[in-house]
């Protein structure tokens, strides 16, 4: 599997990371080096193996479906780059 600059651009877009067009060939070549390394996994027959979901067999604990926390608006907003009138502020989303 070889990644071309078009695929690299698509992945960057999916990851929401801006990459200048001039940097795409180098990025694609790095991806290819890493994916080439990963290809080894294809050597194994894994048809009968269940994919691991939890490294430690455990039942996740359940709790009552009730509110246990909240009313911390000031703390939640304290680290925002732009917070106004009790909200996170972002550029216009809908035209």
């Amino acid at each position: 599997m070889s990644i071309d600059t078009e695929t690299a651009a698509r992945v960057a877009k999916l990851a929401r990371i801006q990459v200048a067009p001039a940097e795409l060939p180098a990025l694609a070549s790095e991806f290819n080096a890493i994916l080439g390394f990963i290809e080894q996994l294809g050597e194994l027959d894994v048809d009968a193996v269940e994919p691991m979901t939890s490294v430690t067999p455990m039942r996740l604990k359940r709790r009552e479906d009730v509110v246990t926390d909240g009313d911390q608006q000031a703390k939640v907003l304290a680290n925002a780059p732009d917070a106004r009138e009790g909200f996170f502020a972002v550029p216009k989303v809908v035209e």
Partner: protein
Amino acid sequence: MTDLNKLTIAEARDALRKGDTTSVALTQACLTAIEGADALGAFVHKTPEIALERAAAADARLQEGDAPDMCGIPVGIKDLFCTEGVASQAGSKILEGFRPEYESTVSGQLRDAGAVMLGKLNMDEFAMGSSNETSVYGNAVNPWRAGNSEAALTPGGSSGGSASAVAADLCLAATGTDTGGSIRQPAAFTGIVGLKPTYGRCSRWGIVAFASSLDQAGPMTKTVRDAAIMGAAMMGHDARDSTSADRPVPDFEAMLTGDIRGKVIGIPKEYRMEGMPEEIEALWHQGAEMLRDAGAELRDISLPHTKYALPAYYVVAPAEASSNLARYDGVRFGYRADMAQGDGITEMYEKTRAQGFGAEVKRRVMIGTYVLSAGFYDAYYNRARKVRALIKRDFEDVFNAGVDSILTPATPSAAFELGKDVADPVEMYLNDVFTVTVNLAGLPGVAVPAGLDKAGLPLGLQLIGRPWEEGDLLNTAYALEEAAGFVAKPAKWW
């Protein structure tokens, strides 16, 4: 008492109990050492006011005679842990200015036990790296140097600041985190002890997430005894982490008898790597002999899927990272890029993440995005999860056959030079070849300093234990530590 910063946790605890010293005196000794050690790049956010305040409170608590083991002990905290009101950046520009309104469970447990936080420690950005060179703060430097060379060496990574600080006696101990070897590899590179507990032992709540199914916090200390003391203080069930184990934490220190007679130590043939320095091979052999001399039985074992651990890791870890790091979008915390006229929210995300993340983090987020994308999910991600199941089964098979713990080298080399040109990212990944299997299988592992190479650099051995049996694992590590008698310290140049 002189050189209080050079004490172990156990020594300091006993001196505090006897009234031979105070936490304020210990803390001041460490703060002085830190002030003179900027060349090591270990402490990136210093908190002397908090430290002295907590030290005074610890002294009061000690006076009352109701103090836990960690009370009054000055420690460093890896930058990955959220600490209330104190910068917590995970070594990244994207968390510039972030001051959490809360404390991570692990650092909170240490704080509540009376431990004194000296400041935050350098690390690879988002814990992605093996040399501490991906940090936004610049490199952490190893206090050890090779022979008469003045070349700066890596302390390893990602917990490089923690390792450097402990090895240079800037603190009595430090917290680390380990996703693929990030506690054990830097511990081995700096001649200290590093314990990665069983997955689920330490709560992940409040620790900046890298790969949630692999991440585990643990202690980085001067001795195995200290790892037992501090490890116990860091562990325990936490309802805020759904994968936290609801199991009692034993008194690990009480289990350090040094008696390992009858224990079966596995020696896995797959860890004999092509091109591994002879000194490491020899040290491994010596370590095995030491354990046999202490009464253990050595057994040759096979972990057949070992060679697939790194490739599986480099699918699973980036996949989880791409998901975990999606939260850094310039909206809720940290850095937001300046925007141009007409930029919308997509440009804000893309510019913020392009400017806020470093090269290695971007690389891994994009690889993770790729292996999870439609059409590749089965070929890469699901296949890697299946291989992970096989790697775990390898360990289960040998443990079921009666092996108590497994001895391996900790790293394929001693500490290497900072700035070494690494054109191929895969070459850097090979640092974790002996440690990454343990994360994939969720097992406890400990790096113990065992000797010096011919340049005078420390080398470590790794012991891998059964799940939840850190006590037994630490006792074997203690026997190895006793037999190896590693006492060397780096000569002070900083």
